[in-house]
């Protein structure tokens, strides 16, 4: 065995491979591979030491068999131990064959075998040479994902070597590798790698301005180091434009050189040359777009680009537009479109749409729609543009575009009349696109009354216009038109008979399509049976849409990568605040509610506390607000025993069990924000029989009524199964300060008996207490301000619970006040401050609790600007200790 000749090892491999190749079937292949593996196994188990070659050959066979069959056995791991061997050749082979093929391919197997990593990583970490750094730059992050300490150390080592690489002039290849690493790292921690920007720029300028002989090694078909340039440009895209003017100037120079070079006549006829040149050019353009520079520079670039694309033309815009017509390569055109998209303004958007290639038309349409919205100062212009868009490229207008225009028209009152008029005129054209019919139908249905005064667009004419297109449209459009007709019935009673005839006609009532037939039948009945009031309610105008992230943008993002779209999206979000011109006043509470997700209601009333506490049944579609200030004659059971204790418990906390008896358990979970609150009440049926007619009602006494508003948002199912738990949500708004608490009355039938339970809902004034931090001077200043005797309430009482400092602190914080440290000269005293939020006012409160341990007593002093508040808070808080 030790006497194996040099070529033998590899020859065995060649034999192995040709055998495999000659195998007729998969089973035969597997058999041959297994045979080889058995061979290898025996070699490894052999008593004699294997020399380098056979190890190599076995490793090579292993990896070949792996790549051919893709199965892995434990045996194939053994050669990894070769890493520890000192001979470079062995290390090489194993490094390449194993670490790359096996480790990258099947990472699941790696995780349970950390000890195998050990030697490999160890060797890297200790050797840490430049070549190794280069070689392993890729592998290590993958291993790092599995989270091993050694891998982290390796990586650290690599960082250092990479930075050195960057500074060093020599090995270009190393720079390339280092650049990749830095780019990825820069994307994660941009701060740390800021210095690399200037280095990158200097490198880039050196490459770009080099004479052809300098970088001979790396010149590819007369283009100097194309891949490295691309990498450097990509790295620069991770950062905003450099602040340092010297660096910025250098960069500008570079980019100009690249653009200039692009214009020069090609140095070589070969396609590789132009491809490489274009590669660098595209990346440069991306960088320019990313930096989004001042208009002047951009025009110049555009001019250069236009020249490049078209070889000589004067006007800058026309350049690019013509380029789209003439340039053969689709990808170049695509890039040109991107460039225009990024820097376009209102005047020229649609013109190039007409010349665009079919394959990218839809994308262009989307982009145009977004641009139109972004630049729309005046929404009439926007409506015009979108209608034009539909006219020109109707087929490519996706659903999102016309949904969006409808959303905008509905949200903005001022543009509704204009939209109706424009749409009406557009529909009069002899051949109009179906999308236009859809938009037109919808808008006229909603706002046709705004133009009905004009004799040219009287209701009957509107109807006839739409109906003339009816038969030319597809089923969904027809369905939409039917809805429009019924809306007309509501808006214009004079056309009701005409429309009813249409709906009654056989072609509708017996239509083959189920949806159309259904709609026709239902609308016909609705128009005949319903009184005008009901009809009006059903067909009321659509309420304004809540603002959402534009679905157009989402669709565009899906098509392309996120990079091009992000900054537009940001600016768009700022703008879209204007779009929703709805009347709801953004309450002061919105600033406190930070819901960062883009899909949150821009009005700030997102997932958390309640929306329409203010304007309840205004818009027709609003939620059902069942006013439960009951006038019902039902007997209110006396408050259940023990509820007082529970009530006191809930003053300082928000969650827990409110009430429990043999049949029913009531749990509570509440959250409060400023003057609004939401309570989740959980009713648990402790028995195995169902409760029938389960009705909880919220009762507020007469004193309480004006001061607090409680709404049950949705009634609970009247049957509660045995062992089940149902939930109910109550929304509460504090209008002004109050002393009593609302009562929850539950009635149900259990078995044959009638049950009636009442509990006090722990909605107390302190729930609307918001803590305020302040310094000691502020505190004492305010304290002195509230020196009016009515404003202060003091109570001296005996402690009911043991006087523990921590517990006391927790209770004060639970009460809602901010606990202020180091304010009171006596450290044993507790000082708190906060603001009670009500709808009408905000009341500042200051409190001070002085414990007397020997006497087991407390003195509580409360100062607020309103006497009743002081009184109530004092009561509540005294009960806690």
């Amino acid at each position, binding site marked *: 065995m030790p006497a194996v000749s040099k070529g033998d090892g590899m020859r065995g491999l060649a034999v192995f491979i040709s055998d495999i190749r000659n195998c007729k079937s998969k089973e035969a292949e597997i058999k041959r591979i297994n045979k080889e593996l058995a061979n290898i196994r025996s070699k490894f188990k052999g008593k004699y030491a294997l020399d380098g070659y056979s190890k190599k050959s076995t490793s090579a066979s292993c990896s070949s068999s792996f790549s051919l069959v893709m199965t892995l056995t434990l045996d194939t791991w053994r050669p990894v131990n070769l890493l520890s061997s000192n001979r470079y050749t062995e290390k090489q082979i194993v490094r390449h064959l194993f670490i790359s093929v096996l480790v*990258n391919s099947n990472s699941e197997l790696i995780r349970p075998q950390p000890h195998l990593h050990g030697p490999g990583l160890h060797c890297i970490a200790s050797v840490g040479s430049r070549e190794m750094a280069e070689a392993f730059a890729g592998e290590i992050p993958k291993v790092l994902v599995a989270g091993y300490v050694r891998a982290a150390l390796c990586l650290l080592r690599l960082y250092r070597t990479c930075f050195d690489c960057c500074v060093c002039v020599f090995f270009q290849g190393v720079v390339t590798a280092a650049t990749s690493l830095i780019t990825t790292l820069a994307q994660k921690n941009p701060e740390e790698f800021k210095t690399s920007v200037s280095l990158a720029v200097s490198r880039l300028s050196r490459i770009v301005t080099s004479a052809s002989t300098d970088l001979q090694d790396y010149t590819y078909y007369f283009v100097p180091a194309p891949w490295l340039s691309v990498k450097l440009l990509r790295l620069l895209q991770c950062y905003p434009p450099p602040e340092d003017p010297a660096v910025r100037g250098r960069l500008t120079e570079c980019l100009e050189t690249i653009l200039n070079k692009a214009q020069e006549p090609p140095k070589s006829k070969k396609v590789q040359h132009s491809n490489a040149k274009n590669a660098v050019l595209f990346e440069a353009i991306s960088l320019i777009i990313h930096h989004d520079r001042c208009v002047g520079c951009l025009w110049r670039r555009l001019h250069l680009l236009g020249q490049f694309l078209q070889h000589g033309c004067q006007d800058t815009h026309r350049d690019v537009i013509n380029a789209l017509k003439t340039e053969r390569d689709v*990808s170049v055109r695509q890039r040109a479109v991107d460039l225009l998209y990024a820097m376009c303004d209102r005047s020229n958007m649609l013109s190039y749409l007409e010349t665009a290639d079919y394959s990218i038309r839809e994308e262009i349409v989307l982009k145009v729609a977004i641009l139109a919205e972004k630049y729309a100062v005046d929404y009439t212009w926007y409506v015009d543009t979108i209608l034009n868009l539909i006219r020109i490229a109707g087929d490519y207008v996706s659903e999102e575009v016309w949904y969006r225009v409808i959303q905008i028209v509905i949200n903005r009152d001022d543009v509704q009349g204009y939209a109706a008029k424009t749409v009406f005129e557009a529909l009069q054209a002899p051949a109009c696109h179906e999308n236009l019919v859809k938009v037109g139908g919808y808008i006229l249905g909603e706002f046709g009354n705004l133009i009905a005064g004009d004799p040219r667009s009287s209701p009957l004419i509107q109807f006839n216009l739409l109906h003339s297109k009816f038969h030319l449209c597809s089923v969904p459009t027809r369905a939409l038109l039917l809805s429009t007709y019924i809306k007309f019935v509501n808006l214009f009673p004079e056309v009701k008979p005409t429309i009813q005839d249409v709906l009654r006609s056989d072609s509708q009532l017996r239509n083959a399509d189920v949806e159309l037939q259904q709609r026709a039948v239902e609308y016909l009945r609705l128009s005949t049976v319903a009184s005008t009031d009901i009809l009006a309610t059903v067909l009321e105008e659509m309420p304004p849409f809540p603002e959402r992230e534009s679905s157009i943008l989402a669709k565009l993002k899906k098509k392309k*990568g996120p990079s091009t779209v992000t900054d537009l999206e940001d600016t768009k979000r700022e703008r879209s605040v204007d779009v929703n011109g709805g009347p709801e006043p953004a309450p002061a509470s919105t600033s406190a509610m930070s819901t960062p997700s883009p899909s949150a209601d821009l009005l700030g009333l997102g997932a958390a506390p309640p929306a329409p506490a203010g304007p309840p049944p205004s818009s027709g579609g609003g939620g059902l607000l069942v006013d439960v200030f009951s006038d019902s004659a039902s007997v209110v059971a006396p408050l259940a025993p023990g509820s007082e204790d529970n009530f006191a418990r809930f003053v300082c906390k928000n969650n827990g069990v409110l009430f429990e008896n043999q049949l029913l358990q009531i749990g509570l979970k509440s959250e409060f924000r400023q003057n609004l609150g939401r309570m989740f009440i959980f009713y648990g049926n402790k028995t195995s029989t169902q409760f029938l007619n389960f009705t909880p009602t919220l009762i507020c006494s007469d004193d309480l009524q004006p001061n607090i508003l409680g709404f049950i948002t949705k009634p609970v199912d009247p049957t509660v199964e045995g062992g089940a738990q149902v939930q109910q949500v109550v929304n509460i708004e504090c209008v002004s300060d109050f002393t009593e608490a609302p009562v929850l009355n539950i009635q149900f039938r259990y078995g044959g008996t009638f049950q009636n339970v009442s509990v006090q809902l722990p909605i107390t004034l302190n729930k609307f207490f918001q803590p305020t931090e302040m310094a000691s001077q502020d505190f004492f200043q305010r304290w002195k301000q509230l020196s009016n005797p009515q404003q202060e309430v003091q109570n001296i009482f005996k402690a009911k619970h043991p006087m523990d400092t921590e517990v006391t602190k927790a209770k004060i914080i639970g009460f809602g006040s901010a606990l202020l440290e180091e304010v009171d000269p006596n450290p044993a005293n507790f000082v708190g401050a906060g603001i009670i939020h009500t709808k009408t006012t905000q009341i500042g409160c200051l409190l001070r609790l002085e414990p007397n341990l020997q006497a087991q007593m407390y003195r509580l002093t409360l100062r607020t600007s309103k006497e009743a508040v002081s009184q109530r808070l004092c009561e509540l808080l005294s009960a806690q200790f």
Partner: protein
Amino acid sequence: MIKFFLMVNKQGQTRLSKYYEHVDINKRTLLETEVIKSCLSRSNEQDFKLIYRQYAASFIVVGVNDTENEMAIYEFIHNFVEVLDEYFSRVVSLMIMFNLDKIHIILDEMVLNGCIVETNRARILAPLLILDKMSES
């Protein structure tokens, strides 16, 4: 970043495959057939971009993600072929099969973890030539 690198012959058999991102083993054959079909019929729908070049009897296909510069990869493929050409002095598909290990070594020298690191022919082939010399001597 480069997601995978394939060399496929006209019959659709994969001669060389290298993945820079984990793909299940069973899924690979599926992926490769799909990719080959796309190349032969020129359509691309998936969430990676395919860049391929045809050389006589085989295709070299590279799958990349969105951020990569297509022209750069296109030329990279050509660079790779030129390197092979220089090493094997007139490369033929058969040679690729018999020297899979060397091809992997070359590819590794050029691409690491999905990023292009070395494009200079001499430097790429240097370690390989050293290896050869050592094995001969």
